[in-house]
């Protein structure tokens, strides 16, 4: 291992536009949102302004509905990021908070309690129709969902946060399953109907927000189920709030306490960080974001259905956090959007395109050969380097997909394989995620102090604090040129 930490001075911006480093990502997010909004606004109301080619391409690959869903996933993933990325507590049942948020919307903004008649700036439709139920404005529902989820987070966290990390993972998983089952069987909970069981609560009220009339002019009113563009703006605002909160809270006292606990619990408690309270607050904060995502999802599909709150969503959220880079807000956002898009649009579209064009065999052959090529290249060309296993690990799933495409009679969904492979490959080769946070990178490259001692004397030479770290870019976003030196694990184990 001849890696020497090469510290590259921060290069000045090439085009001369000098944006403060802390503002680059927020501006990028805003620009992307504005571009998408403008495109869809033109596309919907001034259709001739958009060339047909562009229209068809976007309509196939980037419809607005999956973008909205991706934003919701991003909110939930940001919440999970607070728990997993900031505080280092593995939560495998995060979808429970999503469910609680969703059902809060179902209870407080629908005709579910049809015997009641409570209104507070609810949707105009229900007012005119004089339907019963609780109809409260979505902003208050958001607050209520946040409070309820924070409470749920504290309730599940208080007895279990003292446990060791892997037990905690299991307990949260169990909590997620219990919540699902409670809502699924909730049409007869001690004789009460609290959730309508597997039929779910539908429809949930439309929100009062600005929307567009037929000519594209702004109006204020009920956002119907098909006013996707208005919902997009609504979700962008919510995502921006969650983003801002997670960015700011990380810099504050609480956020630094979370990071301290993540990096060394014992040292943190010795420095006076109250462990339980800090961990609980991370749970509560993450739960609030999950609850907001739940309300947003209820708005998105105009209803709440228990089948959407299964374990696989929790794992999908975890994969988003891991892919993007644990602890890095922007990385997680991008990871969430990529995975959500792949899940909802990318994979199904690609697969249906391949099937429809009748070239399954050809594509399968190409993929299988490409995968085999990767494996062979990995083994032959880079036999002694780190790249060899990486190429092989990427090559195997590609080969499998190719062979299955070639040979399978029926359609097989590759979601499981791809997500599993992403998790494994990321953990084996790039634990810090696509857009790593400098601190996380150091933490994840090397075992914690207690773990290092438990492993034995041969790990003593690994001391992350001796690593030279450039002062800039330590915070979110920047990729810091720290040499990957902790190859010890792989080398030893081979």
């Amino acid at each position, binding site marked *: 291992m001849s890696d020497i930490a090469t510290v590259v001075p921060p290069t000045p911006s090439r085009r001369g536009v000098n944006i403060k480093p802390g503002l680059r990502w927020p501006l990028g997010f805003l620009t992307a949102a504005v571009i998408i909004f403008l495109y869809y606004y033109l596309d919907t109301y001034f259709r001739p302004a958009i060339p047909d080619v562009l229209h068809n391409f976007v309509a196939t690959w980037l419809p607005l509905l999956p973008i909205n869903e991706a934003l919701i996933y991003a909110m939930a993933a940001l919440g999970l990021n607070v728990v997993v990325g900031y505080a280092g507590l593995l939560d495998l049942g995060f979808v429970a908070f999503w469910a609680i948020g969703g059902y809060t919307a179902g209870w407080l903004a629908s005709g579910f309690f049809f015997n009641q008649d409570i209104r507070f700036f609810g949707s105009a439709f229900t007012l005119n129709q004089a339907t019963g139920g609780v109809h409260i404005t979505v902003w208050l529902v958001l607050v209520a969902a946040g409070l309820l989820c924070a409470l749920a987070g504290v309730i599940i966290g208080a007895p279990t946060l003292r446990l060791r990390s892997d*037990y905690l993972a299991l307990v949260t998983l169990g909590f997620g399953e219990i919540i699902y089952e*409670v809502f699924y069987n909730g049409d007869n909970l001690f004789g009460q109907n609290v959730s309508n069981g597997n039929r779910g609560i539908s429809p949930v009220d439309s929100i009062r927000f600005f929307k567009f009339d037929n000519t594209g002019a702004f109006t204020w009113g009920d956002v119907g189920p098909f006013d996707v563009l208005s919902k997009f703006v609504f979700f962008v605002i919510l995502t921006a709030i969650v983003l801002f909160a997670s960015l700011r809270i990380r810099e504050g006292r609480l956020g630094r306490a979370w990071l301290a606990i993540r990096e060394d619990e014992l040292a943190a408690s010795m420095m006076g960080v109250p462990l339980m309270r800090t961990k609980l607050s991370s749970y509560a904060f993450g739960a609030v974001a999950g609850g907001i995502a739940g309300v947003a999802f209820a708005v998105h599909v105009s209803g709440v259905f228990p089948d959407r709150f299964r374990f696989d969503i929790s794992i999908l959220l975890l994969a988003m956090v891991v892919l993007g880079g644990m602890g890095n807000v922007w990385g997680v956002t991008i990871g969430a959007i990529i995975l959500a898009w792949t899940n909802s649009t990318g994979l199904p579209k690609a697969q249906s395109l391949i099937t429809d064009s009748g070239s399954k065999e050809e594509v399968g052959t190409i993929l299988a050969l490409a995968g085999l090529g990767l494996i062979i290249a990995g083994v032959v060309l880079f036999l002694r380097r780190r790249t060899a296993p990486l190429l092989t690990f990427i090559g195997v799933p590609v080969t499998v997909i190719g062979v299955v495409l070639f040979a399978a009679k029926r359609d097989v969904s590759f979601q499981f394989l791809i997500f599993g492979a992403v998790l494994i490959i990321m*953990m084996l080769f790039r634990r810090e995620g696509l857009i790593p946070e400098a601190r996380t990178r150091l933490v994840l490259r090397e075992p914690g102090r207690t773990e290092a001692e438990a492993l034995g*004397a041969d790990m003593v030479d690994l001391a992350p604090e001796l690593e030279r770290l450039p002062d800039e870019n330590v915070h979110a976003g920047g990729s810091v040129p720290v040499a990957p030196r902790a190859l010890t694990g792989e080398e030893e184990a081979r």
Partner: protein
Amino acid sequence: MTQTTAPVRIVAHQRSAVVIRKYLTTAAAVLILLGVAWWLVTSFINDPKLFLSSAVVGLQNGTLFALIALGYTLVYGIIELINFAHGDLFMLGTLFSGLIISSIFGVVKSGATVGGWVIFLVALVGCMAFCGGINVAIEFVAYRRLRKAPKLAPLITAVGMSFVLLFVGLLWNGSAQKSDWRSVLPQGAMYPGGVRIEYKAFVVIAMTVPLLLLMSWIVTQTRVGKAMRAVAQDQDAARLMGIDVNRIISFTFLLGGALAGAAGLMYQQVIGTTRYDLGFNFGLIAFTAAVLGGIGNLTGAVLGGVLIGLIKGLNEGVGLGQQWSQTVVFGILILLMVFRPTGLLGQSTGEKV
């Protein structure tokens, strides 16, 4: 696995708070146990036959849980990893046993024959080898590289592995429930005193108990078992004593996988249906069983498995019903974590300081 916790000095006023808290938790635990006992007694008096029949079904499932839980506990005991893929390995075991019995041997009619028993034994060996082999391969490909990584990394890798195995199951069997496989075990049931006991239950228990004894013999009596215990205690010291740590860990995965394969075969033969996502559920319940008994403790895993099986069977027979079984099992898990995180038979391992 037995680290002693560093003595912590507790100031006097803190101590009284600790004592009060201890009494409170004990009182709560006693109350909960009394409630459960009351429920058991009343439901027994209400309908003793149904109660006992449910208990028998629970016992039969419990032995299967014990087999799977042993795989978790073995792996956890040696490298402190929750092998999330273990439940899915069990699912692959059910599929593979169906393949052997229905496709390779072409059994078309259920019912026990002499040939059927031979096929059953062949399938048992085949399944154990198959699942053990897959488990060893998983360890070799993925977990081995992460042995010195922070704990979160192997755990997430295990979740990824579980997804990959789910994909294999989906590819193999499709997303629908598979239920047209035949059983070579004796069909029917006997009714001593009106309590329904299926003949299969005897077979499962008669197959499981020797396996468990064999496992216990391997771990406590043989040379390789001694090596396993040494590796679990301290990998470096074990290496210095000339133990091939990698080989021993592989062997542990082989044992755990083989037990999951045996459980898969028996599940397929007794229940007769399987689905690609079966393993998730079963794996979680089995892991709860392992934690219930005290993770890392072999006897504890068996005890926990049988207990969880009984609780689940009774709940489905005379309790809240099948739609609440996850809640009951995980509720037990959470309560256990609150009141006795070490499990029934586990010793306090403490955080390594």
